[in-house]
Every structure is written in structure tokens, then in C-alpha cells.
């Protein structure tokens, strides 16, 4: 069984809290902003999944949605099965028990993710005290020291305040904190974004070795596809609140099938391939406003290889390995999320043998 199974997750920001009244729930009202629109993926125990995309594509919203940490204005539907239990329907008490002890988060920019007026030792020890109330003070202190040494900081730094540490050290503290309760899953939300390149590499190596050592699953979120390709087993690329391509890291980074995946991969130099530096390309335009998405495929206004009917059809993820086109989404879902071939799926009409023209007929029918 997968450790984490997300099925058709949507996150909609309500324009106002009053609009979220029970009778209106479920129906899309005016002024609602869909930030995540039907995302499904699975993560096995010990697996590392990378989630990439531009800012504003919904990837951080999704990270917070996993533990239901979004503000009240966010409305969630779908299923988030963690270790068999649906996080979206479980009670707050049970959810609080799963938070950190089951799945912990390494946040972006550890400057602000740590409490400035508490010693880091107290902050690392806090979840231990909370989730294992029987553990004594001395034991917590010992464990905090161990965690700090584990992430390459001397144990006596437990008495330091966040402002006394460098950015890299703070991110190490954040990682130590995430490991405090031996979670099964760590969600790393842009863990290296605020750091310089040297420190970035150190932190990534550290995260990689720690999760590998302890068999922890990792969901790493970043805008930097090359970082993810380096660290993760599988990659998913998000655009406008949806996963548009998903597959083994090397395939997605090296031979993306979705034009957005290709553009994202082309925006970063490949490590160990100096020639790729000269081929760097940006992508013109901005991601669409989630409140006002284009018709059809939401990427078509920026797409360099769009076809005439791209503004009519909005394909979901299809296997790319030259398989027959399924009649509709249902028959594909029945076959499970991991199709044959190299397991890469993309949401683009070009992946389909007939360029998705049959879908156009279905739309107009």
C-alpha cells in the first residue's frame, strides 16, 4: 500500500468566509479561486517525489493542504490517504496527532519559520514533548542534541536563538526539527530557495542522506527542476493547479513530453553538461490567474507548439509510451495510476496518437 495517496484533490479559496456556508459548499460561487484543480498522485514508503512548477502554480498550497494547514477560506475536496486514513475527513484531534509525528514539513526560508524569541532547542523539543508526553526533560535534551549533531550542528547550539545562526544553519535546524518525531513522510517546501548555491548543495545532500538512511518518504517541492531531478526518484510538474506531467525523474527532466515540462527543463542548466548552459531558454508570459483560467488546455496561450483545437480540449494525464488512447478518463483510472512502459504520463493532446481530435468531437457532441 502506498504511504500517501492523493486522489482528485482540489483547493478552492473562497472570496469571503461567509460564502463558505454549509448550503453553498461544493458549488462553485462567484469570486472563488481554484488554486489546486484535481491533483492525484501516490507516494510509496521510502520513495522521493519531486513537485515542480512556477510560483503561483499551486504547489505550496498543495503542501499545506496535505496537513490541512490552509486558512479557513480554503475549501478542500478529494481524498488524501495517509497510511490508509483520509486526512480530509479525520477529526481535528486525530489530525493533530498525525501532524509532525506522521508527516512533518521543512518550510521555505527558515528565517521566518522559526520562532525568533525561543531557543532552537526548545523549538526542536516541542513536538517530541507534544507527541510523546511521557518522555522526560533530560531525555528530550539528549534527543535534541542528537538531532542537531545529526544535521551537522554541535549539540550546544540548542541554546542559540534563530538570529544567531546563518541561513544554512537555520535550515539545518528546521531539518532536525522535522526529524524529531521519526515521521514517515517529510514534505520539503522549497527547502533551499533562500540559500546560496554552496549551502543549497549541502542541504540537499543532507536531506537526501537522512531520508535514505531512515527510510523516510520525501515530497520535495521546488521551482528548480534540476534540483528535484537530482534528488528525487519521480517528478511531477504542476501548472495552474494541475499535474501536467509525471514520471521517473530522469525521463521528465531529460525528455519531457509536455511543452511546459520541456520549457521548465530548458530553463535550467544540466549538471555535468556544459553545453546545456548555452541552450538555456526562458518561457515568455506569466502563469494564468487562477481566478480566470483560459478555456481548453490552460497552458495553450504560452505554448509554442499549440494546435488549433488546444483551446477546446483540456486533456488529463495520459501514458506517453505510445499506448492506445483510452475512450475516456474512467477506463484509464480503472487500470491504476502506474501504467506500463516507463510510467510517464502527460496532459497534452500531442501525447495522444490522433492529437486528441476524438476529444474535440466528444466535447462538441
Amino acid at each position, binding site marked *: 500500500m502506498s504511504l500517501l495517496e492523493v486522489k482528485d484533490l482540489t483547493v478552492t479559496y473562497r472570496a469571503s468566509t461567509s460564502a463558505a456556508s454549509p448550503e453553498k459548499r461544493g458549488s462553485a460561487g462567484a469570486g472563488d479561486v481554484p488554486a489546486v484543480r484535481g491533483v492525484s498522485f501516490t507516494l510509496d514508503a521510502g520513495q522521493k517525489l519531486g513537485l515542480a512548477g512556477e510560483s503561483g502554480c499551486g504547489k505550496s498550497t498543495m503542501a499545506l493542504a496535505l496537513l490541512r494547514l490552509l486558512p479557513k477560506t480554503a475549501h478542500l475536496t478529494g481524498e488524501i490517504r495517509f497510511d490508509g486514513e483520509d486526512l480530509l475527513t479525520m477529526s481535528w484531534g486525530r489530525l493533530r496527532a498525525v501532524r509532525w509525528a506522521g508527516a512533518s514539513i521543512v518550510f521555505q526560508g527558515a528565517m521566518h519559520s522559526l520562532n525568533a524569541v525561543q531557543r532552537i532547542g526548545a523549538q526542536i523539543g516541542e*513536538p517530541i514533548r507534544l507527541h510523546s508526553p511521557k518522555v522526560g526533560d533530560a531525555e528530550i535534551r539528549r534527543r535534541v542534541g542528537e538531532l542537531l549533531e545529526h544535521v551537522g550542528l554541535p549539540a550546544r547550539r540548542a541554546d542559540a*536563538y534563530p538570529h544567531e545562526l546563518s541561513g544554512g544553519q537555520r535550515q539545518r535546524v528546521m531539518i532536525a526539527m522535522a526529524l524529531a518525531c521519526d515521521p514517515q513522510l517529510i514534505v520539503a517546501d522549497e527547502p533551499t530557495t533562500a540559500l546560496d548555491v554552496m549551502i543549497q548543495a549541502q542541504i540537499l545532500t543532507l536531506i537526501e542522506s537522512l531520508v535514505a538512511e531512515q527510510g523516510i518518504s520525501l515530497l520535495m517541492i521546488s521551482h528548480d527542476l534540476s534540483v528535484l531531478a537530482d534528488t528525487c526518484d519521480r517528478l511531477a510538474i504542476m501548472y495552474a493547479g494541475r499535474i501536467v506531467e509525471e514520471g521517473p525523474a530522469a525521463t521528465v527532466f531529460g525528455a519531457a513530453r509536455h511543452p511546459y515540462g520541456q520549457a521548465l527543463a530548458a530553463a535550467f542548466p544540466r549538471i555535468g553538461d556544459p553545453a546545456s548552459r548555452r541552450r538555456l531558454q526562458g518561457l515568455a508570459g506569466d502563469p494564468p490567474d487562477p481566478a480566470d483560467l483560459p478555456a481548453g488546455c490552460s497552458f495553450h496561450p504560452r505554448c509554442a507548439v499549440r494546435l488549433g483545437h488546444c483551446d477546446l480540449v483540456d486533456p488529463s494525464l495520459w501514458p506517453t509510451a505510445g499506448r492506445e488512447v483510452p475512450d475516456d478518463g474512467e477506463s484509464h483510472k480503472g487500470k491504476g495510476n502506474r501504467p506500463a512502459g516507463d510510467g510517464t504520463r502527460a496532459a497534452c493532446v500531442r501525447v495522444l496518437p490522433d492529437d486528441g481530435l476524438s476529444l474535440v468531437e466528444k466535447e462538441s457532441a
Partner: protein
Amino acid sequence: MADSALPTAPVPQLAQSVRDRSGVRRRFRYYGEKLGGSLVSLFAVILTSFFLFRIIPGDPVRTMTHGRPVSIEQQEQLRREFGLDRPLAEQFWSYLTGVLRLDFGDSFQFNRPVTELIGDRLWPTVLLVGTSVLVSAALGLWLGVRCAWNHGSLGDRVNTGVALTLWSVPSFWLGLILIVIFASELGWFPTSGMESTGVEGWERIPDLAHHMVLPLVTLVAVVYAQYLMIMRSSLLDEMGSDYIVTARAKGLRDVIVRRRHAVPNALLPTVTLIFVNLGFVVFGAVLVETIFSWPGLGQLFYSGLSVPDLPLVQGLFILFSAAVILMNLIADLLYPVLDPRVRP
């Protein structure tokens, strides 16, 4: 300390002790600077106090003999007694040496040493205004936390609305209205004073509390909005912070996230405000004390100013300023204890 993937080597003992020593020196310097700054301010106040009240219009001798037939000779004699006939420089010198001995001279109008007068009036003011600062701070901070945590709710809107309305009301007007309604019309509370005559022993405490209700309510009502608004806005700032999401992600209950993480951070800006207001405690509330005939320093200052009773207003002015300076100094010294980021 360098960032490296390997555990960092322990800092050699020598380097550690050097760092400690420079840390101690820095700390001494910080406290020395704060203390020195306060002393300089206090000295400036002592200088200002002498000249300020000699600039304001009014002749003490003429005011005090007002309405009575007094000969020029008698006026001259009074002037001599008060020392007003001597050259300004000489007056200043005796004032200065007096202040350094904590002797502010004798009041013109009460014919008693200023220190004695202040001693008599200090306690009622500290009781009334001190209580009002504590009550309004506690009330304002408590409401501020609740408003921020449920911001946008009906309770939030009503609370901030009421607080801001009261904040814009003049204290003397509110005091008069309260007297009219609750003292004159309903007769629930005494109109003025601090004690009833003929009440002895333990009975004096409820009697005192009874007299204190209206002036206390007036003082609290016009001031607590300050605490509410500052607490509300700084807590709102903190609530949007990432470390609050971290705290919630850890599985902490909302109440604990608020109490352990959000409020300690949000409290920092309000500490300064509380201490600045505590500094004004001895200054009393000139208007409120006058309206309720509360026998405090504010009322004493008012009667001193109308003469002008120079030794009295000089003494009070120095006392008020010294209290503000002292409280600011305490806030300066306390802040590093609360916020590790500004620790010297």
C-alpha cells in the same frame, strides 16, 4: 561558525573566552549608555524646570495677595521671603543646590516643604492611576488578542468600534457625564473625593474602592483602546508569519499556538507602551483628578500652576519627568530580556 556537512569542530577554549569577555564589555557599554542617557535627560529636565515656569505669565505675589489690601512694603516683604528679589543667577544656584539635596523649597501657597506636600499626595495618585494603567493594559491586551484571533468577526468589529469611540472621547467630558448619571441622578457613587469622613479602620478600604470606581472607569475607558489596537495589529502581523504555520504543523492546539508562539512575539511592541504609560502614573490625570477632586498629584499640579507656585511646580515637574525617564530606562533594560534579537 562555518556551514559544513561535517559536524563543526568545537571552538577552542581560548577563542571562547575572548568572545565572552568582549560580550561582557559590550553588555556593560549598552547598560552604561542607557544609564548615562537617562542621567543627561534628568539634568536637562532640572535646568528646564527652573526657567520654564519663570517664563509663564503670572506673578505669584500678586496672585496670592489678590483681593486683599496689601501695601507695597508687604509685597516686597513677601518677595524677600520667597527669594524672588534676588538676582536670577543666585536664585538658580540655590535652586540647583537644593535639588541635589532633594530639597525643592517651601510652597508659596501652602507654606510647607514641597517634598512633604508631594509625599502626602503621591499615594492617592499612584493608587488611582497605577490601577488604571494595570486594568486598561490587562483589558486592552486581552481584548486585543481575542479580536486579532477572530479578526473580521462581529465581536472584533464591535470591540474595536467601542474602544475607538471611547478613545476619542475627552476624559473630562466622560468624567462629568458619569458624575451626572451615576453620582447625581442615581446616587450609586460619591461625586468626589477619596474618603468619607468618619469612616475608620478596615471600613476605609471598601469606602476607598467606592470612591475610586468612577474616576477609574473614566481613566480606563479612554485609554484601553491604545492597548487593544496595538495588541490586535501586532498579533495580526504575527499570525501571518511562517513560524505560526510551523507551530500548527507540529500538531499544537490553536490555544497553545496562540499562547506559546504568537502572543510572546506580539507582546514586544506593547511592553514599551506599558512602561511609557507607567511613567505617567505619578503625573496623574490632571483633568480627571480635578473633576473628581481626587487628592492626588495631578490636582496639586493644577493648583500650583494657577498661582504659579514656583517651588511646587518645579518639584512636581522634576518628579514627573524623573518617573518617565526611569520607566523608559526600565523598558530599555527589560526589552533585551524579552527579545533575544536586541540582546547586547
